């Protein structure tokens, strides 16, 4: 069942859906790979390598366009890196049933994040001393509105520790956990939505690398799976990004809310029944 063409097609679809939703391919890829019989820990390991590719590819364009806030990213990476190690080590020590249930639960958290994010306008509060000391402010040119947007991040003292939890999620489940990171940027640090999404992409690469090193040391990264998965996810993400600009935000959101709910419920049920 796990032939090269099959893995390539599944990863292509996962990368496509992941890019359209902004959540990365892992949330779709891992449930599908486990559904066709792959051990969940190997699926997580293959997924986390592909996350490096898709997030770095996306981040490259956003960083060059000056939308990403590099300083926010560099500060928060400290926490996500340590979180990813912790998460990957937890994965190695817990049983598969628990992993299935955790994965399903995190998909529902992502569902909530997507729901909250789309229903909340961006606010702008007064910057606290710690965030000012960290130089967490910036500006970018918004091509959609033709305006220069200036902003100041706040509550970095909460953003850091919460990012540690996002890092645990990423390392534990082999996903970028972009939805969780974006939610922290949005709700806690009050970054503008575009800065929030693009900075999350930058952070995901380092977070995924930290997790990858743990899985590699346990020989869970199988090139037979990782090779086609990397190719498929990158190609799918490229295609998804191009299609995304032609679709209405609301259509994409409704579609992905449905996908997350179905996959989340399916993973929890499989974990409950013993996979």
């Amino acid at each position: 069942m796990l032939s090269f063409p099959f893995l390539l097609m599944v990863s292509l679809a996962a990368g496509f859906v992941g890019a359209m939703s902004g959540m990365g391919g892992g949330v779709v890829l891992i449930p599908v790979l486990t559904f066709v019989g792959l051990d969940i820990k190997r699926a997580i390991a293959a997924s986390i390598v592909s996350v490096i590719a898709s997030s770095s590819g996306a981040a490259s364009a956003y960083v060059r366009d000056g939308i990403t806030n590099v300083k926010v990213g560099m500060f928060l990476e400290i926490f996500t890196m340590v979180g990813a190690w912790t998460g990957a080590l937890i994965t190695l020590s817990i049983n598969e049933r628990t992993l299935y249930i955790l994965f399903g639960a995190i998909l529902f958290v992502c569902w909530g994040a997507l729901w909250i994010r789309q229903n909340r306008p961006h606010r702008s509060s007064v910057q606290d001393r710690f965030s000012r000391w960290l130089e967490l402010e910036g500006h970018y040119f918004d091509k959609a509105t033709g305006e220069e947007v200036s902003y100041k991040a706040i509550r970095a003292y909460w953003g850091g520790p919460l990012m540690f939890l996002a890092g645990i999620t990423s390392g534990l489940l082999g996903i970028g956990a972009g939805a969780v990171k974006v939610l922290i940027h949005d709700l806690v640090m009050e970054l503008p939505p575009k800065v929030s999404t693009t900075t999350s992409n930058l952070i995901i690469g380092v977070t995924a690398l930290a997790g990858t090193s743990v899985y590699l040391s346990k020989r869970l990264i199988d090139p037979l799976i990782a090779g086609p998965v990397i190719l498929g996810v990158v190609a799918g993400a490229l295609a998804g990004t191009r299609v995304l600009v032609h679709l209405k935000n609301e259509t994409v959101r409704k579609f992905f809310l449905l996908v997350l709910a179905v996959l989340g419920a399916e993973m929890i049920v499989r974990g409950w029944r013993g996979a």
Partner: protein
Amino acid sequence: MYGGGEVPSPAEESSLVRMEKILGAILLSGVLASVSLIAAGYLWRWLRTGQLQLEYALPGSNLYQFWVNDMRQAVQGTFRPRLLINLGIALLMATPYARVFFSFVHFAFVQKNLKYSFFTLFVFGGLTYSLFF
């Protein structure tokens, strides 16, 4: 020196913009080269044997050994499909690592920003440590 939370000067702003351009280039070239190597490895395999399936384990018991092994084989010129695939995977893993290293160099020696030199050095040190897990 810019590092006290004050508003950046135009010179510091342009230095940051330059840094962003270089970071973007590192990420893009890393991913493109990595995907090209993996695709070339599979194409070579398919042209040589008529099939794409490859069953082997990644060499080395940690990321450092994996990189060293691949580089040694590449230097020795023992090219074959699986080495290209391994080099692609290794390069992919090296991409965020290189990005963090460059960020450290920029903050430390170009911007002379002590805080962010420390932050990036911490992440770089952490990632270096994880090479030997």
